[in-house]
């Protein structure tokens, strides 16, 4: 399982590298959607069907919105030469990445081997959950019954995002 997930994630890394270096903006947006669809394969290999359904439809809607923004614009990223600000930005990026890699190497000593996690907190969520909540789907029981505050917070965040989009796009400025 470790090797299979690594191969699919390797394809995702190649797709991501193409997405940030493509000349045409439409190709870049489609490569982002392909990375999202590969995540669906990873979710199905990790035995998470709820997440696979949500990710596939959400990725399709994201692709529609991004294409609606890109399709009528100039669509060509002009090739610009590297000037001093470009060098400073690239060196800062590489420095940040090296520092984060060091901290990741230190903190990955505490991770369990893939597939043998210790289930410290999930024991109390799994045993007797079907009797306590009455639902056969454990993830729905956890989302709506044991952790209902998170769901309420997410509904409020969606309403706030809709209010933000309506304010930005539907109010006319002063003439």
């Amino acid at each position: 399982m470790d090797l299979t997930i690594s191969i699919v994630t390797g394809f995702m890394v190649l797709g991501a590298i193409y997405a940030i270096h493509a000349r045409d903006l439409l190709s870049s947006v489609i490569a982002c959607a392909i990375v999202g669809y590969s995540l669906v394969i990873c979710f199905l290999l990790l035995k998470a069907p709820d997440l696979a359904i949500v990710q596939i439809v959400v990725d399709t809607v994201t692709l529609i919105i991004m294409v609606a923004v890109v399709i009528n614009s100039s669509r060509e990223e002009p090739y610009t030469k590297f000037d001093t600000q470009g060098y400073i930005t690239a060196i800062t990026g590489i420095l940040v990445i090296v520092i984060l890699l060091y901290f990741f190497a230190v903190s990955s000593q505490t991770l369990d081997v893939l597939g043998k996690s210790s289930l410290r907190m999930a024991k109390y969520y799994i045993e007797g959950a079907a009797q306590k909540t009455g639902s056969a789907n454990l993830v729905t029981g956890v989302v709506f019954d044991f952790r209902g505050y998170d769901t309420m917070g997410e509904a409020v965040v969606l309403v706030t995002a809709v209010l933000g989009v309506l304010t930005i796009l539907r109010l006319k400025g002063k003439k």
Partner: protein
Amino acid sequence: MKGMTIIVKKTTQLIAGMVFMYGIYVIVHGHLTPGGGFAGGVVIAGSLILVTLAYGGDFLKLVKEETRTTIVESFATILVIMIAVSGFLFGMKIFFNNFLPKGIVGHLVSAGVLPLYNIFVGIEVAASIFIIFLSLMIFKEESPK
């Protein structure tokens, strides 16, 4: 904006209804099979986006649709919070109390308040995503070329 050709319109007439019914199935069976409120809500929004794209903005009045959808979304959010608060009235005095009878695991009518939560969260998510899409379409229509 103009709609699409007649082949797309006929295919949409055949398919959009089935996608809508599939979204309702995923929402209502949220406590038995994978899915639930969020997945089914986005599927329903997908079927509404399909109808809007195939028939175009000249055929459907987009501003009126948007006004009605915002009202539906506000009602659904208020109902979600009211169901959560109504746990205070029955039994233990905690928020998000699952107070209706639990029933037998595996039957359609079971799991207390969970099917009601799934339905209203599904309506709210579908309305939100449809509003975001409609705002983009109205902006592109009204902006000067």
